């Protein structure tokens, strides 16, 4: 049995009196796409932020290739984080930087690439995401869809091994949403990165996923493939994806 790339082992997280994660267990294999679904406010983003180190677990462990994230040496942790990107739910673009500067930022600040190399790479990502010609525009001058794609270009520009997408298609129209899904699929095939996607685009997002996990009441209550979840054999997962609140609540009772 191969070792998972990322593994959540009985992870608990509490904010004051609110217990968000109550013993999460989840394994993510290298080079796969895992989609995490769940109700709004169920802790999906909190789960992602554990991987990137923005939030520390209260109990349990997050393992990266078998090693606890908290016990990695600073060099190992730096190396792991260097090969990872995070696409934030609200994009987190720097409003004082132009679109080009936003995308180029991870390269200008953390690599020794020349200005010409950076320009070439940024323009390549911009072309692939159909956002050419907006180099000098500030995020406030761009539409929601454009901002999303700028954020995606920034996440992809470093050729990471792991990308965490926090609701990458929120606020996009159906055409743009399908575009983003298509791009994730294409880029993932091309570069082979591991992706963890938090999304509400059910069932469209399932087309990308090798693994689907349902987070409910602080625990992963379902793990499986697209076919398994769509077969509707798991009562809670079935109720959730069909959006039946009453059935969903009853199934948990």
């Amino acid at each position, binding site marked *: 049995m191969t070792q998972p790339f990322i593994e959540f082992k009985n992870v608990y997280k509490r904010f004051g009196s609110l217990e968000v994660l109550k013993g999460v267990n989840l394994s993510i294999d290298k080079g796969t796409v895992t989609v995490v679904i769940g109700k709004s406010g169920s802790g999906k983003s909190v789960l992602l932020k554990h991987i990137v180190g923005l939030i520390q677990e209260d109990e349990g462990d997050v393992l990266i290739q078998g090693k606890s994230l908290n016990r990695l040496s600073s060099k190992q942790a730096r190396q792991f*984080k260097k090969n990872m990107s995070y696409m934030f739910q609200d994009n987190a673009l720097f409003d004082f930087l132009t679109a080009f500067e936003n995308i180029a930022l991870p390269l200008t600040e953390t690599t020794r690439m020349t200005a010409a190399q950076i320009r070439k790479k940024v323009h390549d990502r911009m072309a692939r995401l159909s956002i050419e010609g907006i180099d000098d525009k500030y995020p406030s001058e761009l539409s929601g869809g454009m901002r999303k794609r700028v954020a995606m270009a920034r996440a992809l520009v470093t050729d990471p091994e792991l990308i965490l997408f926090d609701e990458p298609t929120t606020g996009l129209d159906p055409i743009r949403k399908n575009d983003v899904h298509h791009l994730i699929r294409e880029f993932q095939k091309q570069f082979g990165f591991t992706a963890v996607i938090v999304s509400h685009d059910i069932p469209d997002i399932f087309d990308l996923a090798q693994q689907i996990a349902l987070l409910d009441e602080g625990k992963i209550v379902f793990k499986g493939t697209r076919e398994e979840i769509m077969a509707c054999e798991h009562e809670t997962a079935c109720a959730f994806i069909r959006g039946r609140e009453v059935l969903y609540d009853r199934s948990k009772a």
Partner: protein
Amino acid sequence: MSLVSIQYSCFFYFLFFVIDSGISLKIMISRLIETIGNPFSSYIESLGRLIRFFLAGIRQIPVLPFQWNKILDQIGFIGAKSLFVILLTSMFTGMVLGLQGYYSLVTFGSEAALGSAVALSLIRELGPVLTAIMITARAGSAMAAEIGVMRMSEQIDALVTMQINPVRFIFSPRIVAALICFPLLTAFFDVVGIFGGFLSGSLLMGINETVYMDKVIQSVKMIDIWGGFIKSFVFALVVATICSYRGYFAHMNNQGQTGAKGVSLATTSAVVQSCIWILIFDYVITSFLV
């Protein structure tokens, strides 16, 4: 009835009240300690965080590559954009000093000393203090709000995920820019303020122009100018640190407010605390210099 017996009576009345109301003394004492201890421990925690933030920012300044572009941007923001307001404030401060000084000195027949009074007040005290307060109001508040919005919109988290040191990226260029701008703007304030005193004292009230300028030149010593500059360097560190710190930790305020309210609280406390600490440090430095 003596004061001591009144105190004893009050104490026993309080004790009877406590026993009577069924609250044990132990609980009362523990609540008292809690009431005093909680704000005190959170203040100590906040102070520790501020010092760590300051040291982390200072440590990142010499780290290569130098952040020239960001420093120049901040010099433009803190320095160049504050120049007009500093010139305006200094002109009127000097003019008021000229008028007040003239009416005070003329009663003793020593209005000729107006140049000395205006120049020394400005160079030793008013120049550094008012410049720092004006920069806090104009640039410090904007600094806290900008960094606060960065915190609330996850831009600081985005820096962390990109392996970019947020303290280096956000805070270090602001310290360097403040250290360059504060003394320069203070110098502008002093010169324009002395000229303001000249306008009201000599041109309006009729003190001889040569006497005014001669008194300025005679009375001002190099130690006065250095004293003013030392103050402006310290104020630069105080304002840049407090305003950046308040913005950086805008999500960690006492009232548990986030979003726009959190940014507004951060901005208010940045300005108020900066002004208070400017005045405290002014007293401390002056007590060493005189």
